[in-house]
């Protein structure tokens, strides 16, 4: 079973009934989690880029607020990756530590996740 983590996404109460929206990211094969600027979390996957085998896949989670992500968030996400791999019947929900209930701490609406690649770390 794939390991998923769901992350708050888009506008507050974006779903019907003003319920929150989440995007799930498949974290199976993630071996490193680092901060990306001050508003992103970069995931390193143990899978190489299909066209550039020297590079490995990265996914960047892009949060709306300009300074929403801290080093402690990265540690928490890394711990959750391990937790998700053990959770056979649940999908853990990640929330930034500073989440104040605004969309600043949600993934951005139009580019919530970026697929990229880089040298392994």
């Amino acid at each position: 079973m794939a390991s998923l983590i769901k992350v708050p996404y888009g506008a507050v109460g974006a779903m019907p009934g003003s319920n929150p929206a989440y995007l799930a990211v498949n974290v199976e094969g993630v071996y490193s989690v680092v901060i990306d600027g001050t508003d992103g979390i970069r995931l390193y996957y143990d899978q190489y880029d299909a066209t550039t085998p020297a590079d490995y896949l990265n996914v960047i989670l892009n949060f709306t607020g300009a300074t929403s992500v801290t080093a402690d968030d990265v540690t928490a996400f890394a711990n959750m990756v391990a937790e998700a791999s053990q959770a056979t019947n649940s999908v853990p929900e990640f929330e930034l530590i500073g989440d104040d209930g605004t969309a600043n701490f949600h993934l951005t609406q139009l580019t919530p996740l970026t697929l990229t690649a880089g040298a392994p770390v």
Partner: protein
Amino acid sequence: MSNYLKIAMLQTGLTTAGDALKASVTTDVSGGANGTFTGLTVADGDLTIADSAGVAKSLSQPCTLRIVVATGTITSGAGEATATIAGEGFAVGDTITIAAASIGTPTGDAVITIVADDLQSATVPATRYIPVEDILYVVPLSTTTIRLWMKNGATAAGTGSNSLITFSNPAISIDALAGSASDSIISAIQAENSVPTASFGGIKPITVVMT
């Protein structure tokens, strides 16, 4: 656990192929102005939907039509009848009455009588399945399109395997469509001994294309 995302495709919406409804115009117009009339909807009073017995019916999703009146009629020459948004809830024998006041004020209303070829079911399969284990995440593109990135074969250049899912009827927002799709993936992965049908906030796709 389920390995597939089951997708119920739109069946009872109108085909959105250009001019596809012209052959089903059973009452044409005359005596009005020529022109292109877009954005015709039930909500604006342009259209009235009835079943084969003539009883007014409501659609589960609204449709939108474009009508072109040329040389005084819809069915001749450059005249056109096209669904630009498919809607949902049509059946063979239903009628769409287009108010004369909305299409150049001819002497009477126009009527389209739905036949099997006018429905999405004529060309779209009822169900599609997408392997769910390999989905990396949902890419929101618009209120009518999402992309499911697959992990295998993915490239940073964005040329990897993915499924592009297109809807005719728009979702209430980009966030709601992508969020619903993501919730469906979670449900499919967690389902034991069943293949749950994906939900996209009340709308159904018209195409699922693996690219």
